[in-house]
């Protein structure tokens, strides 16, 4: 494997890690506030469709992004109403949202575009173009560092940079602001937050809304940056890999970045090499695809450090009367 191939695989890793990272951080806000969310997949899917559809109709990718965020927020709100207002089962609500998105996106896509559940291909202003960072072309001839800067760091769409910037921002919000402290507290001990006179319901809705925004960006990235247009079931389990990454990261932002980069890297390897021949035996592509899930089970089993979720996660808060 030569240097340029390594750069290309890493470049592909970054592009594949971006939607995972956004969805993973989305889940981080929600679960840190005590709302389990296995509906990340559905929210991303809905966002991917509406972003693709609106970007095609208006030929403006920014309107597409807004539509994607809107669709994802709507499903978030549904999740909030079900699990916060009506104190329903958060897991069941998440399952319902995944199916709702899987069904509705194809249904609406067929009704609007009649292309078998996909949007037409996006062109020109309907897509996020890669950004070329300053001096990328000038620095390219520099040995070693030049290609790294020009190929690996430069040349991604703006959503990639937003995703990576979200990591320190999320860390700062959660661990350096009053809102973040309260958000974490509401996931550990909502009664204490309530006693302090802060609204548990308000905080949880805020967390679920942030989750919706981030899932919306993740979905929009899929259909308007990573690919050109929406295809049926295009999230392909990414929401669940993001969930796995969240557990892998033990609900912490910086570790979420590492976990998503790792899973993105695994995806890039599987995409490029199919079956990997190690001489003595061949690693099948199916194993590479399953590796994120296997690693998550190992982590969950507590053999490599225990993953302890927020304590009040999954439980509706009932105010004492």
């Amino acid at each position: 494997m030569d240097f340029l191939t390594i750069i290309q695989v890493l470049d592909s890793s970054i592009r594949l890690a971006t939607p995972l990272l956004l969805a993973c951080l989305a889940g981080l806000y929600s679960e840190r506030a005590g709302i389990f969310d296995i509906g990340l997949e559905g929210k991303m899917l809905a966002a991917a469709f509406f972003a693709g559809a609106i970007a095609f109709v208006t030929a403006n990718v920014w309107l597409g992004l807004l539509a994607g965020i809107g669709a994802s927020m709507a499903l978030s709100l549904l999740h909030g109403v079900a699990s916060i207002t009506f104190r329903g089962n958060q897991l069941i609500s998440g399952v319902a949202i995944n199916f709702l998105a899987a069904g509705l996106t194809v249904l609406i896509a067929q009704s609007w575009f009649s292309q078998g559940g996909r949007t037409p291909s996006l062109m020109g202003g309907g897509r996020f173009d890669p950004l070329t960072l300053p001096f990328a072309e000038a620095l390219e001839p520099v040995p070693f560092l030049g290609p790294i800067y020009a190929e690996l760091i430069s040349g991604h769409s703006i959503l990639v940079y937003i995703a990576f910037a979200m990591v320190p921002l999320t860390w700062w919000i959660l661990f350096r602001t009053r809102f973040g402290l309260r958000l974490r507290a509401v996931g550990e001990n909502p009664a204490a937050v309530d006693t302090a006179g802060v609204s548990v319901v308000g905080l949880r809705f805020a967390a679920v809304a942030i989750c919706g925004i981030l899932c919306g960006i993740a979905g929009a990235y899929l259909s308007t940056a990573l690919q050109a247009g929406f295809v049926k079931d295009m999230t392909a389990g990414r929401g669940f890999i993001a969930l796995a990454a969240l557990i892998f990261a033990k609900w912490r932002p910086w570790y979420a970045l590492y976990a998503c980069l790792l899973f993105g890297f695994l995806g890039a390897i599987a995409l490029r090499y199919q079956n990997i021949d190690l001489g003595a035996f061949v690693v099948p592509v199916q194993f590479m695809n399953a590796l994120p899930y296997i690693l998550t089970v190992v982590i969950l089993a507590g053999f490599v450090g225990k993953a302890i979720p927020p304590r009040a996660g999954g439980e509706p808060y009932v105010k004492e009367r």
Partner: protein
Amino acid sequence: MDRMPAWADAVLVPLISLLLAAVLSALVIVAIGEDPWEAVKLMVTGALGSTYGWGYTLYYTTNFIFTGLAVSVAFHARLFNIGGEGQAMLGGLGVAIVCLYFPWPHWTIALLFATLSAGLFGALWAWLPAYLQAARGSHIVITTIMFNFIASALLNYVLVHVMRPPGSMDPATATFPEATHLPTLHEMLAPFGIAFSKSAPANVTLLIAIAACIAVWALIWRTKLGYEIRAFGHSESAAKYAGINPVRITVIAMLISGGLAGLMALNTTMGEAERLILNATEGAGFIGIAVALMGRSHPVGVAMAALLFGFLYQGGAELALWMSIPRELIVVIQALVILFTGALDNMVRMPLERVFMAFRKDA
């Protein structure tokens, strides 16, 4: 004090939820520019208007009974098994191994061993998530989701690299030998002089599904183990205090659940395809969630909900064929049923409880 009579809880709440789901589905059909009444008529004639339609409806029903029972048994122990899909895939592997690698003299013996094997494979796939939940506290919902993906990758590998016959491009096993062919409803009803469609896939597995309903009912409400499972589901601490071992109950409940999900493969793999194909489960494992929620985790309810979803599935296929409504409409209906009967249960229940309380005061 009960706020509502038992019949209202068991019948009224699911019916109102179903009604809400139906109204919203009708609105969806209107929104995509089709006539919901026309769609309903087409679904009824397509799914119930001929023995061909019934054959498909009952075929799907059989699948959903198994997966619905699987989710129900886990629900009784307050475990949420989303892994029915993966467990059913592994069940298919168990069926395929039994049917392909052993010479069977008669289908009855083949069916017996295929049943054992499918149940065993499904149960084994549920064992690790169950053990991890019980002994190490890893959340069963997450582990069973992960196991679905691992099962799908495993099956993909086995079908592409191990069990695919030489020369075939299709990721599927060879066709099972003739001796393992299960009688279809057509063949079963013909001796009684009842004409049933020849091409419909419903088969003898339907009877196993009905037997499974009775067995689950007896297990949950008529045995010590069932009592322990329910006690554990109602209150873990009380169950512990009564001397019930939580690890044991969690693992046993999940083994039964996984085994039931695995049995679904009898219907799809041995009964219909007669070979193991890549996507034999077709999401039936997830429909089990909707079926169990609607059926209130009771075998009678599960059987009725499974029939409803069997009807929706076959009717949905007809819609996709004759009107420009994609099959995904069924996924939407399924989502709405899960939403209303599962997550938004309180939204239906709270006003209803108030109504009943008001009546009670007058009395």
